[in-house]
């Protein structure tokens, strides 16, 4: 079964009070494409790393918007930057640069 990145997670509580607007704007300045993701999940469907470990750019973007940047980073750790996601993204998002940028912005403590 291919994991499309949809599905129920054990706890779906979202605490938007924790959302770091400043960092999100920093990310959007570095890679504006983050704003245009429509959460279709195409990227996750083709993901090379996703065959082995749960890896999903869609989920990572959602996690960031839901103030769970730690989960987003974890979600992208297995990524091999292969670029398949950028080839299928219907919004033409520069996914590889987005992944690198998320790492850059959110892994700074």
């Amino acid at each position: 079964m291919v994991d499309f990145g949809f599905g129920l997670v054990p706890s779906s509580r979202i605490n938007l009070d924790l959302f770091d607007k400043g960092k999100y704007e920093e990310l959007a300045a570095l890679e504006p494409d983050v704003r245009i993701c429509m959460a279709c999940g195409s990227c996750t469907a083709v993901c090379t790393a996703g065959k082995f470990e749960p890896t999903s750019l869609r989920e990572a973007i959602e996690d960031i918007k839901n103030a769970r940047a730690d989960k987003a980073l974890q979600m992208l750790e297995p990524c091999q930057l292969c670029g398949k996601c950028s080839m299928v993204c219907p919004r033409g998002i520069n996914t590889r640069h987005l992944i690198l940028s998320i790492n850059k912005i959110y892994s700074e403590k």
Partner: protein
Amino acid sequence: MTPLSYLLAAQAEVPEVIDRIPSGFSYFVIPFTVGVAFMFCWLGVGLIRLLADIPKEDRIKFGKSLFIPKVALKNIKELFCDCLFHVKIWQRKPLLGYMHSAIAFGWFMIIILGHIEVALFVPARLNVTRGGLFYPIFYRYFVWMNPGHTTLRGSFFFFLMDFFLLYILSGIALAIFKRFRSIVLGMRHTTKPSFADRVALYSLWMIFPLRLLAESFTADLSGGSFLTIPVNQFWHFLFGDKLWFMPCWWAYSICLGLFFAAMPFSRYMHILTEVLWILLRNAGVKPNHPRKGVAEAEIYACSSCGLCLDACPMNVQKKNLKYSSVYFIRFLRRHNEKKINAIADKCLMCDKCHALCPVGVDAPALRRAQRATVNNTMPYNYAYLDASGSVQPSEPGRVHSRFAAAENGLSPESAPADSTQPCHANPGVLYFAGCMTHLTPRIIKSVEKVFKAAGVEYAFADREGGICCGRPLMLAGRTDAAAKVIEANKQMIEASGCKTLVLSCPICYKIFKEEYHLEGINVVHYTQFINELIAAGRLDVKKTDEKIVYHDPCELGRGCGVYLEPRAALSQVGTLVKASKEYDESICCGGSLGSLTLDTHDRAKISQASLQALLSGNPETIVTACPLCLKTFSEAVSRGENLEQHVKVKDFAEAICP
């Protein structure tokens, strides 16, 4: 021609040349001497620092290489061809080549001849303590020709000096012209000079006209030839006996001094650094940092000639000119970290600027090193790759298909179509499709069709999808992460026991060839493999009159030097037509994974430019041998912007076995 015996006999009793000024000094030499001394000190310190930055093994390797006859010969050849004659520029833009070689070779000859003259006529002055630093440069000022005693040997030198001066002046005239009308010399874009560049540039323009003035004013004292004598007579005609030679010598010396003082901070630094870069390059030492050590020699060897501006596919849009290699290198020199990163991330890594650079500056490799300084430390978690040793799927239902081939050994997937055809000619063929090919399954279909038709027994390494080859990580500067992926793939391939590895993606091909070091396994791109099948008569192809244009994918052509095999095979199935830019000048399709920040809009512009070049010969079909190009061109053609004719886009294997 002057007979040699006559030359020798000319050693007359009466001195031909008289050291006119006993002290061998005049105040006007000061600007030049200061400038040149400053330059030498600066360079000396720089050289020591540079060598200190190179790892010890590389330093030893470099030192040894200078004494290996083969390398030494190559060094000498390249020093002459590249530094003095600028052969590579000649080959592309003859007029530009003439300009560069006129200035470089002409100046070199004037300096050499000046020293020879001093050595022949006033040898004592070569001594540094007696003016050796400036005397040969201002020789004509310091000497007086003994009238009536000028020998043929002397005249011969006068002639040569005037000849080379004229030669340089013609080059300078072209250079001045080029500043204002670059297109005449075949360049659409030229570089914007920096401040130090301007100082050096304008003084360079002035140096030789001033030299002509200065020498012509003294020509009746110290001799001259076809250029300086007539000019001297003209001055006499204009000014009578009041000749302005002191101001001219002063101006000449000041310009020289300014030029040498500005040199270390300007593009003209390349004149000297190129020598070091050629020696380092031929010694085989590679830069391991974008700016230090070998890279420093490399970036200072760039002459800012600007040939990479026209080469770069990003420059179909003027706004992208600032991302060209020449500016990347300029900002590396200036340590402008922010701009360096922005430029490093933008590039498509198509390698065209490297292929066309007359100095051989590998800017894409420097960009990769620069990206590594930022991206290499990013966290990654490839624990799932380590599980590969045990070849155990991590959970049921998730197929680790990349190990399928290794697990089963080489189980042939297709029996030979024709059993009379023996297939031991290709024992143990393993086909690795790669991520990108899996997104364009038409390629896989055609490749399998070809294999079947030719009766090739093969195993499919990643039928259900495998892992990435590591090249995209490498291009993003994540070298350590790439090494992990490479290791995992390598284990899989070695375990399969294959003898030949066939790849349909040039991106994979490049890294498999360069970084995998697969002992005893022949790594080939499918264009090469299929071409061999055709040549060996194992694959029957039908010649049609379809007009085909072949697109050289960056990683395959410039990246791996595969240009001829695909063309040889395609010419068996159709008529090849030319593209306006092909082989190492081919334009990136715009889909390259190399660029990290180029957006879809900019990429589409590049695709269009690339398509236009391909369509110049009115082909019916564009054939490419890369899944990324295939997808990019297919989309660009279906968008149909600015396309008059309708073309099909096909993959190489599709074209061979329709």
